[in-house]
């Protein structure tokens, strides 16, 4: 059976220089799509991944992650877009990788399709009106 899940991996400073994701691909034959990552040498870091593959390999892969000391959490936050707060400039739409935030043309109105959102949080820092927030 095939599974596909979005997860957040959190790394401790000692783990960030280990080729963790390489192992997932090489040893567990999993398909990895990196949605968001913030990894810096000698600091804590995180990666938001979409992992897909055979369910048995998936479970073994996650077991490997945990045994290596990586905290694995399902991607549970949601992005809330506050329509009233939005200035409808559309800056966020050029950063949204999935088109969840988009400019409806020709109206030039910003819209949000929550079903497409992968909670990558790319919109957070680029919104000048603070109209998007992440709810965990």
């Amino acid at each position: 059976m095939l599974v596909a899940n979005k997860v957040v991996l959190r790394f401790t400073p000692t783990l960030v220089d280990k080729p963790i994701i390489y192992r997932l691909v090489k040893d567990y034959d999993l398909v990895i799509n990196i949605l968001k990552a913030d990894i810096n040498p000698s600091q804590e870091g995180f990666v938001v991944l979409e992992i897909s593959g055979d369910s048995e390999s998936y479970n073994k892969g996650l077991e490997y992650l945990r045994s290596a000391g990586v905290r694995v959490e399902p991607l549970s936050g949601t992005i809330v877009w506050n329509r009233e707060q939005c200035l409808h400039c559309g800056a966020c739409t050029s950063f949204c990788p999935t088109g969840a935030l988009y400019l409806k043309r020709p109206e030039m109105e910003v819209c949000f399709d929550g079903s497409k959102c992968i909670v990558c949080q790319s919109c957070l820092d680029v919104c000048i009106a603070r109209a998007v927030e992440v709810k965990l």
Partner: protein
Amino acid sequence: MAVQKTFEEINEKIKKGTAVVVTAEGIIDLVREKGASEAARQVDVVTTATFGTMCSSGVFLNFGHSRPRIKMKRVYLNGVPAYTGIAAVDAYLGATELPESDPENRLHPGRFLYGGGHVIEDLVARRPVKLEASAYGTDCYPRRHIETWITLDDINEAILFNPRNAYQNYNVAVNLSSRTIYTYMGVLKPNLGNAGYATCGQLSPLLNDPYYRTIGIGTRIFLGGGIGYVAWHGTQHNPGVPRSANGLPLTGAGTLAVIGDLKQMKPEWLRGTSFAGYGASLAVGIGIPIPILDEEILLYTTVRDEDILMPVVDYSRAYPENTGEILCHVSYAELRSGKVEFDGKEVPTTPLSSYYKARQIAEILKDWIKSGKFLLTQPVERLPGAESGIVLKGLTEQRNGG
């Protein structure tokens, strides 16, 4: 016979409710349909608008006198300092001012969640704002400290006075470096990852009156949801820049200083903004009517997005180093489409002004004029024009007083 109208004639029609008013978008189709002469005869006013962050903005406040009196030397509004080097209880709060406790860019990029622009938004939204003031004490103003809460309705005056708004044209910002940069033109991704752009194209006030034939000192405008006026030409007004054949400037060019009663304004049209890694500011909504006094004025209002060419500037080097280098020009139409092409590469565009809200402002101003409650004013003085000889000065470093 060529159409000639006066402000008085147009105002008479507005008072009678017979004035024909269209937006700067509507006029394009109308002229295409009816031709310029016929449209100039029919149409009395074209409404233009813009909505975007304009850093050179702020508000003069008079708090009223406390008992005993205080001559405020330091003033904080919700922790944001205001300038008080004027009379005892007058202050000027600038849009980009930050609380002293703001971490700024110590953890880069800073978020700048609250600044002067947000205080202005809070005042306009009628939210209570904490006022703290201190002083050294004088015989006539003995008090040294006050801490209280104010609302916009509690204070005597709140006058929005923005020294530079409504830039005629503006840079398109790109990043040629290999790291993400955080600018007042938004977050710019490395290696030409995106292009930040501002203004509202064919709706923008000064692009519809490129030679300032009707917009001048004293022009009554929509400002932040209330009524305001053009007070002066804006700072850095630079009308003598190169222009394309249609008269449109190819770089920043003209600007406006605007003034209005903050008490009339609405938070919908005056909003605090936060630019990651850059700072806080204020988004301002402005609408300006253009009286169709003759066919030439009308033709200028038919400017279309594809006519407007904007200079592309590298904000990783050319802008900060102030080299003046322009990479190329792109049209507003391309920018508004969501992507532009540079050197065969497709680059997504990042809008910073709100075309959507500008369109709403142009509609509101149209309704105000049609309903007879907004009359046009003839400028008491024209703005310095392309022939004025104004040259924008830079700042040179001198030693020992030159």
